[in-house]
Each structure stands twice: as C-alpha cells, then as structure tokens.
C-alpha cells in the first residue's frame, strides 16, 4: 500500500510556524521530518511518523504554492485563492524576507548578478546555511533591488510599500540595496570584524546625507546613488591637508581643546596629521568608483586600525572626532564649511560605529 496522493485543503489556509521555519531554512521534507521528530512532537501529540511525514509534505506543498505570491507580497494580500488572516500574511512575508546575518555578510556590497549566484555553493559550505536558503535570500535581495532600483522617493518607504515589510526589515533591505548598488567592499579580511548591523547603520547615514535624495526628494534613484556633485566637491577638502598652515592650525585647535581631556592625548598629537590626511584623502578620492567601493577598507585602514593599535578608548575617539570636525569652523581660511559638515557629520557617525573590536 503506497500513498499516491495525500492532500489537505482548509478554507482558511493552515500555516504551521515551525514547519515554515524549516522550509525557509531549506531543509528537505525528510530532514524536516527528522528534525520535528527530534523536537518531541510525536510524544506530545501521540502522532505517528507517517502522520508527521504527511503533514510536513502538505505544509511544504502549501508553502511552495504560496512562494509565487510571496515574491510580490501585495499579491498575497489581494489574491483570492488562499484565505489567510492578515496577521498570518504578515508573518509569512516577514519570515520569508528575513535573512541570516552570516549570509548577508557574504554578499553585502556584491553585485547581485548571476556570477554571485554561482558562488552561493561556496557561501553555503562556508556558512552552514543550506544552498536552498541561500538562494532564497539571494533572490530576495535581487528582487527587492530590481523593484526599487529606479523608483522615486525614499528607499525605505519604497521597500516597505512594495514588500510590506516591517520598518526594521525594510531599513535592512534599504541598506542591502544601497550597498549592492554602490558595490562597497565588505568582504576583505580587515572588515570581517564588522557586522551587518554596522554596515546598515552606515548605509542609513549615507543615504540620509550623501545621496541625491538628501538635497532633492523629487529625483529618480534618489536614495540609491551617491550625490555625484557632492563627491566632486569633496575635492575641495584637499586644502585641509595640502595647506601646511591650515593643517597645523587645525591640529593646534584640536590639541588645545582636548588637552587633559583625552587619555591618549600624546598618541593623538603624534598621529594627528596622519589621521587627518587619511580622512581627507578618503573624501577627495571618492570621485573614482573604485575608491568609493573601497570606502570602508580605507576608513578601517586609515583611521580605525591606527587608533586601535594605540588602544584609543571609544570615548576618546568620540571626543577627538567631535573636536576634529568642529575645529574646522574656526579655520578662517577654509570656505567649505557646509561641505565639510555634510561629509564629516556622516563620517563621524560611521567611524564611531565601525570603531570596535
């Protein structure tokens, strides 16, 4: 006796959260059944393994059929085929678009192309996340990217509107899309200590201050691309390190203000010119795409690492950066105060977030 066909269809579609999780995690039906058995469900319910198998198959089939709709969540809300309570719909969508930290770190800033997709095998082996799950997460990134790519308006709002995600998740996707679009390098060994949260934080600051949308909310792509004009203008900051007098003046202003307040004062004093040169050079190079991509590598190399090697505490980094940014306003010969603030305001936030072990 073999079961040819075995289905269960409810007027309200039954969703089992546990099975949904297993499905999202990319387990095969067999593995999922084994995992469920291990969870002790048989003992709790008095069911048999055959019942569990049939139940799991059924849920998997349902999820498989729902997947098409999950690709465009508003469709899930308006479709007539599956009657699902709104709270369950929200749960289905939110879980489907959720991603693993380990996975997102691997693809963050990479081009969401076929080439990257081919590397998913390696990512799967490296992270221990099933290939199926990797594919789903990758496809989610790509799908969201494609939809919001050329859209007007706030990136987060667009993601939220077209994918009906929670605010938190929509922000994460905005960061992922932003990183993918600008292809920021995040995979270098130096950057391994950074979490997705760190990058997402930086992305949000950059979207708010460095994109076209920061100055004009009526343009296409406003949150996706960095403001080219702004990047061009950043060259003007060169004077801060190129003009020796200006540099010295800047240094003395910062040192005067921080004397006695900084635990690492002497190290700061010794390193000031290097650090300043590093931060300003990062700005001036941003006209080249290549250097934009290396932004985080540069920030870590030029600022985070030197400070870390001198064992600056975070509070000292904060004091220094505040003073470093503010002192420029007292430099009489420097005319690009607004530009400096737009640049340094964001950079300071990013650096503070990036500065940890």
């Amino acid at each position, binding site marked *: 006796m073999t*079961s040819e066909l075995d*289905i*269960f269809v409810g007027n309200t579609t039954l969703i089992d959260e546990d099975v949904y999780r297993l499905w999202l995690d990319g387990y095969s039906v067999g593995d999922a059944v084994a995992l469920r058995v291990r969870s002790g469900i048989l003992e709790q319910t008095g069911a048999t393994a*055959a019942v569990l198998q049939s139940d799991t198959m059924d849920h998997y*089939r349902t999820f498989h059929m729902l997947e098409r709709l999950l690709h465009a969540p508003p469709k899930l809300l308006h479709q007539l085929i599956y009657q699902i309570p709104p709270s369950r719909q929200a749960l289905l969508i939110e879980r489907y678009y959720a991603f693993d930290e380990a996975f997102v770190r691997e693809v963050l800033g990479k081009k969401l192309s076929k080439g990257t997709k081919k590397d998913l095998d390696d990512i799967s082996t490296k992270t221990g996340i099933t290939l199926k799950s990797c594919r789903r997460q990758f496809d989610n990134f790509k799908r969201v990217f494609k939809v919001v790519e050329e859209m007007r308006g706030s990136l987060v709002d667009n993601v939220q509107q077209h994918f009906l995600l929670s605010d938190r998740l929509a922000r994460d996707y905005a960061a992922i899309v932003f990183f993918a679009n600008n292809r920021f390098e995040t995979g270098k060994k130096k950057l391994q200590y950074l979490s997705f949260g760190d990058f997402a934080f930086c992305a949000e600051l950059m979207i708010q201050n460095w994109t076209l949308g920061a100055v004009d909310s009526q343009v296409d792509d406003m949150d996706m691309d960095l403001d080219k004009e702004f990047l061009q203008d950043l060259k003007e900051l060169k004077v801060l390190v190129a003009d020796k007098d200006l540099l010295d003046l800047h240094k003395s202003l910062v040192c005067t203000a921080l004397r006695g307040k900084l635990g690492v004062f002497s190290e700061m004093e010794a390193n000031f010119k290097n650090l300043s040169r590093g931060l300003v050079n990062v700005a001036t190079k941003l006209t080249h795409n290549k250097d934009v991509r290396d932004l985080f590598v540069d920030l870590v190399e030029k600022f985070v690492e030197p400070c870390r090697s001198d064992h600056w505490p975070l509070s000292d980094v904060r004091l220094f950066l505040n003073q470093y940014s503010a002192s420029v306003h007292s430099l009489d010969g420097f005319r690009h105060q607004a530009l400096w603030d737009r640049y340094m305001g964001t950079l300071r936030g990013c650096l503070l977030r990036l500065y940890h072990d």
Partner: protein
Amino acid sequence: MPGKLKVKIVAGRHLPVMDRASDLTDAFVEVKFGNTTFKTDVYPKSLNPQWNSEWFKFEVDDEDLQDEPLQITVLDHDTYSANDAIGKVYIDIDPLLYSEAATVISGWFPIYDTIHGIRGEINVVVKVDLFNDLNRFRQSSCGVKFFCTTSIPKCYRAVIIHGFVEELVVNEDPEYQWIDRIRTPRASNEARQRLISLMSGELQRKIGLKVLEMRGNAVVGYLQCFDLEGESGLVVRAIGTACTLDKLSSPAAFLPACNSPSKEMKEIPFNEDPNPNTHSSGPSTPLKNQTYSFSPSKSYSRQSSSSDTDLSLTPKTGMGSGSAGKEGGPFKALLRQQTQSALEQREFPFFTLTAFPPGFLVHVGGVVSARSVKLLDRIHNPAFVGIMGNTRSYKLLDWNSFNSDEPETRDAWWAEIRQEIKSHAKALGCHAVVGYSESTSICEEVCILSASGTAAVLNPRFLQDGTVEGCLEQRLEENLPAGCGFCHIPYDELNMPFPAHLTYCYNCRKQKVPDVLFTTIDLPTDATVIGKGCLIQARLCRLKKKAQAEANATAISNLLPFMEYEVHTQLMNKLKLKGMNALFGLRIQITVGENMLMGLASATGVYLAALPTPGGIQIAGKTPNDGSYEQHISHMQKKINDTIAKNKELYEINPPEISEEIIGSPIPEPRQRSRLLRSQSESSDEVTELDLSHGKKDAFVLEIDDTDAMEDVHSLLTDVPPPSGFYSCNTEIMPGINNWTSEIQMFTSVRVIRLSSLNLTNHALNKNFNDLCENLLKSLYFKLRSMIPCCLCHVNFTVSLPEDELIQVTVTAVAITFDKNQALQTTKAHVEKSLQRASTDNEELLQFPLELCSDSLPSHPFPPAKEHLESASSNSGIPAAQRAVTVEKTSPMGEGNFRNRSAAPCANSTVGVVKMTPLSFIPGAKITKYLGIINMFFIRETTSLREEGGVSGFLHAFIAEVFAMVRAHVAALGGNAVVSYIMKQCVFMENPNKNQAQCLINVSGDAVVFARESELEVVSTQQPAANCQPACTGGEVTT
C-alpha cells in the same frame, strides 16, 4: 421579454502575461448570454486593465434566465493570429431571480481556465430587471427558492411541508463525442462545464415548476448530482423537499397565527379546500387532504383544556399522538391510518430533510435502504429532449434518431427503487421516509443505484394546506413525553416486521422502544442524550472477479447482500463497543470498482436515554476444549470489556441505574436486531428481503471459529479513539457539546492509495482500507491540534475506485473549537437532568411550565409568555409556538442589520473573509439572509503534471481554487458565508506516464449573510446565545 439582464465589466487584475515580448497583455472581454455576445474594447498593454464598459443588456425569457449561465471570457487580443483565451467566469444569475435574495452581483471573480487554473481576476457587475409575467402556462419557475440546507432555513418558518420533488435530465457527454478527438482538451472541458451548467439550470427550473404546481415556494434539502455514465451519457438528477416557507421577519404572517387567532386567518384553509370527501375521491393534488383540515378555533379551545388525554377529541384532528399510554394501540392505528392516507396520495412520501420543526417527527422506525444494479450499455441513445435550443453544437452529432425514452428509463429505475423504499417503510409501520437521499456508483457499464432514508411517522399538521396552528403543539407535547417520543416503535408489537426485542421506554416507561435505533437523520433537538457522541465507521472490501456486462452485474448483485450484512454487523459491534445504543446520520456507501466492491458506513453513535443500556460483547470459541485457546479467548474478552469501560468513560456515558421494579418489566437481555431493511434487485425484477438480524441467536456473542473472525475482533479493537480534546461526528452537532466558539475551519482532505500486491485477499484489502481511513483521521487530528478542544462535525467520507488498484477517499468536514469549561458544566447538568428524569417520575414537574404556558397564552398579552419561555428555554419541552415568538422578535432587527452590512463588503477593497461550513448554521452567529444556492462544477486538466507538483500538487491547487471561486461568488452576492456546503463529486483521473491528470469537482451550498451574535445583541434584548444554538433553532420554524 420578461427579463433584462445587465452586465458591466469594470476591470481586471493580476492577469497573466500573454505577450512574451512586452511581458504584458492586451485584454478584452466577451460577455455571452444565450446566443447574444458583447465585447469590450481592447485595453492594451496592461496586466490590470480598466475596461469600465457600458452596460451590456440582454433581453431574455425568464426561462433562459434560469437555465443559462452568464459566460464571461477574457481574451488577449492578437493582431496577426487568433486571440488567445485567458480564461472564463461562469456566473449563475439564479440568485437575482427572486426578490428576497441578492439584488446585484458585484465583485472580483477569479478568471478560470481548465488547463491553467485561476489566471487573475475580473470585476463584474450584474443586475436583472424582471417584468411580471402572469402567463399560467409559463415554463419558468422564477421565484422558487432553493436551499441545500436539510432543515428549515434559519430565518424562515415552514407553513407547509409539501414533500418530495425529483427530476432528472440526460444528455450526451461532450467528452465522448467524436468531435472530442479533434478539439482541444480546453474546448472539450469548456463544453462539458457549460453543458452541465445548462443542465443544472434546466433541472432547477423544472423542479421549481413542480414546486409551483404543489403551491409551494421553496425547495429545502435540494441535492443535485451528476452521473458520468461515460459512453452512455451524462445524467443530472436532483431531489428535494418542496415547502411553503414564510420569512420570519414579516410579522403579519406570524402574529395572527399564534397570538391573535383572528377569524379571517382561520377561514382560509376551508376556503381553499372546500371538498371534504377526499378519502374516496383521491384528489388530483396531494396537498388537498381535507381530512386534516381543522378549525384553528377548535384547536384553541382544546389546547386550553387540561392535559388529560381526551381521545374523543384527538382522533378528529388526527394529530394527537400515538403515545397516550394504555390506549396507545388502537389510537396508534388510527393515527397511522389517517396520516397514511394523507401521505399515500403522494407517490413518494419522502423528505430530504434531516432536522425537523418540533413536533413534526412522531416516531422513527429505522433505516430503510434499497439498491439496484443496472447495466448502462443497454441504453445507447443520445437524447436532446432536455435542452432543446441550447444544443446547437451538439445537434451535429445526432447520428441516431432522437430517443426520448432515456430520461424515462432513468426515471423508471429510480421510481422502482423509491417504490421499494416506500414498501420497506410500510413494513416498519411507517408512512413516510425522512432523511432521504439517493446516490450512484458507476464503473464502466455497471451502475449501482442506492437510496436510503429513515422510516418515520410524521405529524400531518405540516403536510396540509392552510395555516398551521402552532399552539396546537402544546397539546401534542403534553401527550408526548419530551425527548423520547420519536424512539417509540411505530410498528405493531404483535406483528413486527422482523424479530426485535422491545422494552418499555426508559424515559416515559409507557411505550415500547427497540434496544437499538439506526437512523439517517440528525439527532432531534429534543432528544435526551447521555454523554457525548462519536463517529462510528464500518469499512469493508470485497474482491470480485473482473467480468463483463451481465455477468458482472450478477456478480455484484450477489455480493451486495453479504456486504450489507457485514457492514451492519460491524456497525452494531462498534456501537456496542462504544457503549452506545443509537446511530444518527447513517450513510452507507457502496462503491463498485473493476475488481472489488467497497462499503463504507459512517454514523454518529449516541446513548439515547430512552433506549435500554446496551449489553457487552461476548466472545465464544468454537473449540472449547483447548486450554490455551480458552485462555486466549478470555484474554480477548477482557480486552473488549476494558475497551467498553474506557469508552464509557471517554464519552461520559453514565446512565442512571434503574431498578427493575420501576421499569415494570424485566430488563431484556441484549439482543441484536436490525432496523435495516434492504434489498437488491438486478434489472428490477425480484425484490429480496434479507433478514439482517441473527434470528434467535444471541447476536452479541461473537464466534471465533477461524482466523478471519479473530482478525475481525482484532480490527474492532484497533480503532483508536481520537486524541484527548477531540471529538468527531458526522451529524450537524455533537450531543453533549453546545458552547461552540466562533472559530471554525472547513477542510477537504483527499487520499489515494495504490494497492501493492497482485494477489490481494479480502482480508488484506480490508486492512488496507481500514488503515487508510484511520490514518486519514489521525492526520486530521494532528493537523487541527491547535484548535483543541475541538469537534469535527459533519465528517463526510466518500470512497471511489478510480482505477484497478487505486482507492480514493475524500473527506470534508468542519472543525469547531468549543469552550471546554463550559462544556463540562453543561454536560454535567445534562446528565443530572436526565438522571433526575429517569429516577423519579417527574413528568408532572416537566409539564408544569407547559401547562402554565398554554393557559397563559391565550389570555395573557405577549410579553409575560415570552419571559416565561426564556426561563424554560434550553429544555426540550418548550411549546414550539412560544419559542417561535421569541425568535420572531429578533428577525426584524436581523433584517435591519443586514442592510447595514450588505453595503460593507462592496466598499471594502481588501479581500473579505468568507466562511464555509457543511453545517446549516454558523456558531456564535445568526444568519440574517439567504442569498441563493451555489452550485458549481469545474473541470481541471493538466498535461504537465510533474511541473505542477505531481498529483498532490495538482489536486491541492485545484481544490484551493474551487474554494476561492465559491468564496468569490458568495462575496459578489454580498454574502459572507456558505452554509450546508458539500463537495458532491471529486472525480480524479491520472495518467502519470503521459504526465497528465484530470479532475472534476462539483460543490454546492447556500450563500448567506450572517451577523455575529455579539453584534446582534447590541440591538436586541434577546436571550443570549441560546437563540442561535442549534439546540433551540428548531423553534423558529413552527407555529
């Protein structure tokens, strides 16, 4: 031109991409009704077109309005090649044809394609302007309401229950026409869908005409089925119960009847029926039976008299009751004689209802069933009689001469079976059959026709012309001890149709009752039940040799009696094992396959307080000398006894101990006897009646004389009870549970197994089948575990044998969560009550409120009587007339409430929730309006089975789509639920080698608007909850 149909195509959404190049679609819509077609403009390059068309107007006969579906086809415009069809929507406009139902159909409908399934949605508005046509020779029957519900619908009351209506139409199946070889599967499927839609429209119209002839205005318990006879054609047949219903919200119809017996009202029956000598003349219409017309004023005087049985008065009205103690014998005969004559004039005194207005059902005799094996190939002529004018495309195929005999042949087959049922009922001393249903099972050219029902004695009050006096019921109920009257035997004790063991009723101790009662109806609301009920199934397979034509039919005919016997024995044993004594909702399905017959009987077992306690099961070995064998036997015996004890505990069956002295007659030894009369006939000739009882032998001794018998006993014990927190039944409600929450989940589950071995034995087959059903149930319990405590209600199993080695089981049921704490309390109270009732003769005590009511009603004004009623509610002995009073009060408000709601779904853009349930009610809610019948037929086919997820994926998606289309139609009618939903057919065929599969599904139900009880309470000062509890709903229907 008696009608104008107006259609507007508003918009589409989620259309499929039809143009690969642009990833878009140039969609337009064809709207077709009858021979007229309109088209919208092409809306270019969009998956969400906004046509916003003008109103397309069709001027048509109302006959066509009833028969034809509105056909909407969405197409993709193609400049260079033929336009591609995206899909279709068929809309049955019948609900617009009677004033009380929907006024407009408006909403999003899934666009359905038989190959691709649902492909987007279309927004359509449909209206009908009907002109009154007083042509008495008209062919249409607009205005007759149809209900699938097998009880009087909740917001109506039955004025008269006229009786049985049936009709069938036959046509050639498009699938088997020569043209099918050259047309695409899509065209073939669509031809079939359209034909069946037409045929069911026509069928409904014809039944409507019969109802009008009987002067009724509604069909209740309408059941329409298809027989796919293959080469020999396609039969659509329907049965139902014609009624005259009154909407409860119209106070004029109600108040005079019960509260102020005005002269004018009373006169009506006489005016309409002036001919008093019906007995001899035999009037032409079955309705005119003057014998039972009586003056309401007379009855009034009578009902205000004391509760003493006054036989000199009662026989005149013919509706007193057969339970008046000592005089019972002769009186019963009189009653039977009189009611019989009322019903005898009907060809078939059958009722498809399973629940009845209080007082309607007097006695229940037992299950009657008849089966007949027919050969289909003997009739081989296409018939176009049914759908003249609509068969243009099929006329071509008329290579044979017209043969109008065919419908008659089918009619004759059924008439023969019905005749048999009628005679069985008669043998049980009953003049009517209730809970009546018909079914077929077809395999190749062999067809088994089955009919079954419950023989019963009915109160003729509801069956006659004129206003029924509700107040009379009090009289009736005074005489009939509440909750046990229906158990009393209707047949003559000295002249029993079969050997039966009778005892005095354990409730009233006056009348005789059988020790076991089998019925096909729902548990009467006033029945006293101890503990809870449970689903009981008997499952059976029998191998048969493959044979052709008559040899095959003969083989089947020979097997049938044995199957019925065994199914019956199994039911009886399982019932005993559960410690119960009655079965309700019994449905025995015999399915025929190439090489086997399957029998599946489902019923809900209960313990009726009026019936004696069932005895245990004794096991006896054939060879008593063997020591070890003895030991084994005694071990088995112990297991059985343990199981019975465990079940009694599980289902809370703890009947009160009754000493013999009180009973006044010795407690009988348990004996098996059968309420089941059945017979087979092959091609109609001989009627064999088989005595299913075991004669003098003590039936509950199971003899173990061979291994098979041993296995049978084992299999008895392997039925696992549902996990704790779960109950199941196949009736509407579960006795002992009455505090349902509003959480319901209707579902359909389908399983197909392939039998592995070639040398199957009956035994292995039985085991496979048994496992299949048990595992299916186990899976359901597991799936629905989040709803605990919960009850699976209306569990409906269907078995089919699609191929040689395949068994398909389809289950539809509804899971309802209940409140556990309350449940326990009420059960306890219930038990206590019955305890009380049984231990002390407190009939007078029970009667007290009744008498008070009857006295107070005529003299007192309205409100006090109502108050009184509320205090007495939930008890079974309330005079129905008074109950009706309270219900009546809610209705106008309910109506008002509906108006508020009906606008809401239209305004709402998001998808509204539509509940579906096989029950006739929605827990915790009140049905405020019936919008019309939903009767839909779909075919789905695929040539890429693997790509669609195999057979499971294919069928899963299809059933989900069918649900969606039902919901969409209900929502478009302005409704928010389907009640009495049933999946009548689910025919699945696969050919995995060709990567193909096909499935046909037929579903029906009643579209309704319901309002949550909590919402209603805001406006009403009604008694809480009780009003909508099924236990009390019967009251709405009376007067």
